[in-house]
């Protein structure tokens, strides 16, 4: 490859000036003339109840109230806030059994915080005060907080279509025996010399993106539904809203505002349906709905918690012969991503090691918890916590070094990836492991931490992971990009890819500049307007750079091709005989025959006539590149983390001392952006491993939907971080890049658990691994 000029450089991010001066407009910052405020009334008294009466009359009389809406005053259509159903064919939807089971307001409360009614008023205060006047009475129903409870024979059924409250299991038609599997697992276990088996619990972690859900909707004079939202998926939300309100897509417009963090919480719809329903009730007036932190917590999806059973068999020489696993997740009150996570949790498991045979079953059970959906990693962190601890247990029994074992048995190029039948086409995990081991002083520390005594004991642990760049071939991957060449030879890219802070607009701009051989400053990315932008799936599955970048690259190549064709005509030369330097197209071997991009671009737009000759000057037509891009693969990122911890044997407290992350990123289009993803991912991974979990009481009332009661790693808790970027260009990625958006979160989870195992010799089966659990385990071991 020729030398890269923009790719690989730490350019200034596109949006940071606006962000650092406070000029960036998030949804809550948008003020429109005549704005009204909506307040949604939710049930915070019960997690499962039937509404027996709803009296809106007092609220309607309150000062400043414009309208009060109950379940009957809005569309009766049911919907599914997730967008997975739009990423598969109608047939596949049938096979998966995806259903629409949410309504705007409900008379059957299924979780703490379910929506009952709403007030529209002239101010937020008036709306809040009136909302307090809405009188609801309930009939309490039994609550089912776990899969075990929900599947009992006498449990109330959440949906008639889903007997046994089994929202989803891998469908027989696509997965014989309801399992994602290869080989003959039961037979393989007979060959095993060592078998390890346990049941784990993985927690309900919350994204805690810093911007709580904020929305504005306006049903305008042209009978168009406008919605201002910081969704990760503007085009799919546009389509979802069009379906829900039975409007053509031309009459639904998403104004995508700056996103204050997503991590999956904004994947699909959150409160867009409610906000739009309010706006439809007051045509011509914008309605703003602002969530409190606690409300955002229980209305946007969380990570799927649940019981995760796993059994592995090894031969004495270390050969992994069989892996059997089952993840029963406590889905929550509505279907949303029931199918997706139940599948991918196993896919990541299947994509990691060369087991002779493997069988994974994934089941999603309705429960009276708030909904679960996408969260950075999408099943992978759950699998990492369980799989990587089981591997380390196996290694301990085999007496082999966990890094050596992983190097020998992880899947690589040519092996089936996370999707059986789609082999990996690049993998630099060995290099990641070697470099991480060296940077972390693995061998020396592993030796040193044997046979410790004393109150503070250290441990060092490793975990690896595989992930994906885009969800192809499981789900549709598609991005449309227009690249418009202006007469001054700058380019505006028009596409719907969103930037949640992960830096995608910056890296997409770098890809464009590099492809065109223009300056970074020559490119502008126009996003945020679904009227103008073509299709894009949205930001999920670490795909924006990989798929969006592919689209940008193709559209820019199209511009470049047109430029060269025109230059060829003007210079009367063969295209192959031309080259570009500093935005001037030259004829090879001829120093004076050239034409600037600026001239071509300008003549294309201002195609004037030469007054003397009467001939048109230059080639007519504004150049526009176009791509409707479907990626050929899913360029798998791999990565490893080595964690070092110190455990206080008297209190069970864990201090994380250092994380060394080494990731196969294909190519770091912007190293700072990649490091930022790994750093931020690690903060969330450590949280999942050590502190983050949503707690409910036995009535299903959430106990910690606030930053006061739910604790994340803060600046002083974060360890020393070392990030190693292993650049092994993927053959299909733009300039070799792979997706890195989720990867950083995953291996810190397993590595931290394994470091604790190394320090205390005991595995803690429930995440988060709190001091309480460690102390209990230490005591149990002494008994």
């Amino acid at each position, binding site marked *: 490859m020729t030398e890269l000029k923009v790719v690989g450089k730490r350019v200034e991010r596109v949006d940071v000036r606006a962000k650092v001066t406070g000029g960036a407009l998030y949804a809550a910052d948008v003020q429109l003339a005549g704005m009204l405020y909506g307040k949604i009334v939710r049930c915070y008294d019960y997690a499962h109840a039937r509404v027996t009466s709803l009296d809106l009359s007092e609220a309607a009389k309150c000062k400043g109230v414009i309208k009060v809406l109950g379940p009957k005053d809005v569309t009766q259509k049911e919907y599914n806030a997730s967008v997975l159903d739009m990423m598969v064919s109608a047939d596949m939807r049938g096979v998966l059994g995806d259903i629409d089971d949410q309504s705007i307001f409900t008379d059957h409360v299924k979780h703490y915080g379910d929506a009952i009614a709403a007030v529209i008023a002239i101010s937020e205060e008036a709306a*809040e005060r009136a909302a307090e006047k809405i009188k609801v009475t309930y009939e309490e129903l039994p609550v089912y907080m776990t899969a075990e409870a929900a599947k009992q024979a006498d449990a109330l059924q959440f949906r008639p279509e889903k007997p046994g409250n089994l929202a989803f299991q891998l469908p027989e038609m696509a997965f014989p025996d309801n399992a994602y599997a290869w080989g003959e697992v039961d037979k393989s276990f007979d060959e095993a010399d060592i078998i390890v088996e346990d049941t784990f619990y993985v927690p309900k972690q919350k994204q805690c993106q810093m911007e709580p859900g904020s929305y504005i909707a306006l049903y305008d004079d042209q009978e168009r539904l406008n919605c201002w939202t910081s969704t990760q998926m503007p085009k799919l939300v546009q389509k979802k809203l069009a379906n829900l309100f039975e409007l053509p897509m031309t009459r639904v417009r998403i104004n995508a505002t700056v996103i204050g963090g997503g991590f999956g919480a904004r994947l699909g719809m959150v409160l867009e349906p409610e906000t739009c329903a309010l706006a439809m009730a007051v045509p011509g007036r914008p309605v703003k709905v602002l969530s409190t932190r606690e409300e955002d917590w229980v209305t946007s999806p969380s990570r799927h918690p649940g019981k995760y059973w796993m059994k592995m068999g090894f031969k004495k020489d270390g050969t992994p012969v069989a892996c059997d696993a089952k993840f029963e997740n406590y889905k929550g009150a509505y279907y949303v991503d029931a199918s997706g996570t139940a599948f991918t949790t196993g896919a990541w498991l299947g994509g990691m090691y060369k087991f002779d045979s493997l069988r994974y079953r994934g089941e999603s059970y309705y429960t009276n918890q708030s909904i679960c959906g996408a969260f950075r990693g999408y099943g992978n962190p759950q699998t990492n916590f369980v799989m990587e601890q089981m591997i380390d247990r196996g290694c301990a029994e085999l007496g082999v070094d966990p890094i050596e074992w992983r190097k020998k048995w992880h899947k690589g190029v040519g092996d089936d990836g996370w999707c059986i039948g789609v082999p990996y086409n690049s993998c630099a995990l060995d290099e990641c492991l070697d470099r991480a081991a060296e940077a972390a002083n693995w061998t020396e520390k592993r030796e040193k931490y044997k046979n410790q005594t004393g109150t503070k004991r250290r441990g060092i642990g490793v975990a690896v992971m595989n992930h994906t760049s885009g969800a192809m071939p499981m789900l549709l991957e598609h991005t449309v990009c227009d690249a418009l060449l202006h007469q001054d030879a700058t380019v505006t890219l028009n596409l719907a890819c969103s930037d949640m802070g992960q830096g995608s607009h910056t890296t997409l701009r770098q890809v464009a500049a590099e492809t065109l051989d223009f300056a970074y400053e020559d490119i502008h990315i126009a996003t945020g307007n679904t009227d103008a932008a073509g299709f894009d799936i949205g930001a999920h599955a670490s795909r924006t750079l990989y798929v969006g970048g592919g689209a940008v690259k193709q559209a820019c190549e199209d511009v470049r091709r047109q430029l060269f064709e025109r230059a060829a005509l003007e210079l009367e030369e063969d295209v192959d005989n031309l080259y570009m330097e500093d935005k001037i197209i030259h004829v090879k071997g001829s120093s004076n025959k050239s034409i600037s991009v600026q001239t071509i671009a300008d003549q294309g737009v201002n195609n004037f006539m030469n007054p003397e000759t009467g001939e048109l000057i230059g080639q007519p037509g504004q150049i526009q590149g176009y791509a409707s891009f479907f990626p050929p693969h899913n360029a798998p990122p791999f990565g490893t983390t080595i964690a070092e911890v110190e455990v206080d044997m008297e209190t069970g407290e864990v201090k994380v001392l250092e994380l060394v992350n080494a990731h196969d990123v294909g190519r770091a289009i912007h190293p700072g952006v990649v490091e930022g993803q790994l750093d931020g991912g690690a903060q969330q991974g450590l949280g999942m491993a050590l502190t983050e979990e949503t707690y409910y009481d036995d009535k299903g009332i959430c*106990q910690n939907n606030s930053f006061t009661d739910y604790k*994340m790693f*803060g600046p002083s*808790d974060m360890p020393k971080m070392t990030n190693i970027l292993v650049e092994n260009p993927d053959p299909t990625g733009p300039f070799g890049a792979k997706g890195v958006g989720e990867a950083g979160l995953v291996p810190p989870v397993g590595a931290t658990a394994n470091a604790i195992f190394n320090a205390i010799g005991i595995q803690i089966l429930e995440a988060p691994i709190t*001091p309480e659990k460690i*102390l209990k385990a230490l005591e149990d071991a002494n008994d």
Partner: protein
Amino acid sequence: MTSRVMRDFDLLLPESVPEVLELLADHKDNCAILSGGTDLLVALKFDYAVDNVVSLALVPGLDDLSFDPDQGLSIGAKVTIADIVKSQDVKTYYPALWQAAKVFATPQLRNTATVLGNIMRASPAGDCSLALYALGGDLQLKNASGVRDVSLDDFWLSYGVTARQSDELAISLRVPPPTAGQKSAFQRMTRTTEDLSKINAAVSLTMADGVCQSARVAMGCVGPTLIRLPKVEAMLGGAEITEDLLGEVSDMVAAEITPIDDIRSSADYRRKVAGILVRRVINLALTEGNNQ
């Protein structure tokens, strides 16, 4: 569940202590004093309701933080946690208080939260309150008819309930002067660095020739109020502090506390680590708790 808009109340902005006292006398129970507001405003966003809020913002003369070797430390009603952290005198003579202030909440909150507000809140987790409990102190409570002194030992009655009458304003807290050989320390355990304590402990020991003359040992999050541990104090008083004694002390702690389960920790865990924390805070006082 908080509300994005606080409930209705009238904010009153008196400009002198007598004016405050008048308002308190008028409104009695239907009135809350607003100092730093870091507890009160959060409560008002939850379900606490009161019609009148009396702010101390414009009241002069309440921000005195002064130390005198003979009189001790005087902390005015408006002295913030940040003021404590910045005070060299506190750092030197009352290490327990300084250590509590240092880890208290967040920099922003330390700039507004007050020491007296922390005491008035009567939380069983209050960090500065706990350090002061170990150090000992008298509150000056003032109403329209006069001032009375109440020892911290008698101030916290039950969860959130104090000996303050509704018409009284806490004017200041006086902490006794440091005594020769006094050593103090504070330590807490939290889920993450920034958090309310899940358990905390503070001690003040008077040492002479390696023997503990007297001890005050206080703990938080192990009962409905902050508590002192009289049996532990008795064990320490007059004794040489050896590792063996600390082992016995550690065992005794569990017998003196009544922790509960809550979101931050479990009763069981608190019982298990309480003794360890006390042992550690005593060691900290002995090694770093000098009052000079």
